[in-house]
């Protein structure tokens, strides 16, 4: 009986928070055009903070992910004398799946946690209340620029990740394992279509919205204590990882 009540209470809490997050998302969408056109400098600052500051980690990870992918593809295809196709498979995997997904997960770990803790700390130290008292809407001034910065930065980071990943695969498959460079790139060029690239772009935009929304929501709705901010940071990573993988499946299934 008490278990039923507990499950019911958990479900109610989940639905209440989910509903509140949807309303928050609508508020962000409503305020976004105004911020984009009148306070674009704030958005640029956030693209720098979330995007530019994440480039190093994105490139390092992408290089090794591409290298491992190339190695595995080569090893598998070698059995069928089809090593030249390693480029195609690596490219498809990076552009359609691995690029957007891993970029989103790295974004959650690097930029998402930073957004959540920054907004959470601003709340805990009354900075958001102070803005309200100065007749400045903190959602418009603080949250929307960070949300838009994340949404704009994610596709750019994904493009950088994918290109660096392809370079990593090239280094291993062509430079290290001796596959012909012409065959490697020509097969990739023939096999990859604009639809594949578009799928990667769509995923990166959706993941950008999901990861940025979860980060700013967790920060904004945090309990204003040190413990609350810590929890919000952890929840940002966990929820973003789950949401990205769920959305990845939904988008892949709907585009097949």
């Amino acid at each position: 009986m008490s278990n039923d009540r507990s499950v019911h209470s958990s479900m109610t809490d989940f639905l209440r928070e989910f509903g509140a997050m949807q309303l928050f998302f609508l508020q962000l969408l409503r305020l976004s055009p105004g911020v984009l056109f009148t306070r674009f400098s704030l958005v640029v600052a956030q693209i720098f903070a979330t995007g530019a500051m994440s480039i190093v980690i994105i490139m390092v990870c992408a290089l090794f992910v591409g290298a491992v992918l190339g190695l595995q593809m080569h090893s598998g295809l070698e059995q069928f004398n089809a090593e030249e196709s390693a480029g195609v498979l690596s490219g498809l995997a990076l552009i359609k799946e691995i690029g957007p997904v891993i970029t989103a997960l790295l974004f959650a770990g690097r930029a998402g946690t930073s957004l959540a803790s920054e907004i959470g700390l601003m709340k805990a130290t009354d900075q958001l209340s102070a803005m309200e008292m100065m007749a400045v809407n903190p959602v418009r001034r603080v949250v929307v620029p960070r949300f838009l910065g994340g949404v704009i930065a994610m596709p750019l980071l994904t493009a950088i990740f994918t290109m660096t990943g392809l370079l990593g695969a090239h280094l291993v498959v062509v430079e290290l394992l001796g596959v012909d460079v012409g065959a490697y790139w020509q097969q990739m060029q023939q096999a990859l279509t604009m639809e594949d690239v578009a799928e990667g772009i769509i995923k990166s935009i959706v993941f950008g919205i999901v990861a940025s929304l979860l980060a700013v929501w967790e920060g904004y709705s945090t309990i204003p204590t040190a413990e609350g901010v810590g929890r919000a940071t952890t929840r940002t990573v966990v929820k973003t990882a789950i949401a990205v993988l769920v959305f990845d499946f939904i988008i892949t299934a709907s585009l097949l």
Partner: protein
Amino acid sequence: MAKFCYPSPPWVDARRSARRAFRQDKTLSHALIEVKNLNFARGSRQIFKNLNITLAAGDVTAVMGPSGTGKTTLLRLITRQLEPDSGQVLVDGVDIATLSVAQLYKLRTRFGMLFQNGALLTDLNVFENVAFPLREHTKLGDRLIRHVVLTKLQAVGLRGAADLMPSELSGGMGRRVALARAIVMDPDILIYDEPFVGLDPISLGVIVRLVRRINDTLGISSIVVSHDIDELATVSDQSYLIAEGSVAASGRPEALRENDSELVRQFMHGTPDGPVGFHFEAPDYETQLVGEELA
């Protein structure tokens, strides 16, 4: 050599003169903020029960009370950062609960609030913190903003700290910067939440003098929430003592000291015994200790 004065924006001069004229004409004195039959609870704990307070225009009004009586909560209710369960908060006769968000924000441009911890924006330096409301609400050029900000920082003695970041300031300095920010838009009502907590004697003296001087010079109204009786006695025109959810006593600070009520006497003279208990509500001490031992 003639002393150089930074020019004030024209609207500031006009508002300031109007307020000074109003203050000098005592027959016009009126209730600026009225709290009527206000009830507010947090969970099962009733914070305010039928609270009634009137804050007169032009006065420094002190709101005192033991810790945990809801002084800060009252400020948040007055500025509609919180909604009461019932009752009204009237500002210039207007029930703030009836205002739309846009109207509320417009009203808040008339308020300046000094938060207990300063609440400076940590990603901006001192200058930009003080300039923040001007940049958000006006189209003033950089030159004029610089003049206004430096004037306000000069008033709180921190013009030399303009380039420092909030993390480089002491608690007292941070609060003075927050005060400069609170007055930069030349508000009609200045609200201080525990402005004297944790200050060294020098900073304390400066802040006490500033509260009175700003109120009189700018011709504004001030609300000071604190439990520092001596400091409040020197700056306030009117005081309210809040206890057990309602007004226990009100009047001029010196009159409160002479009050006959046991509760008021206990608070004003800081005696440990009286109606306000030192201990939070708990089961019997001995029973709890012995009971736990037996268990």
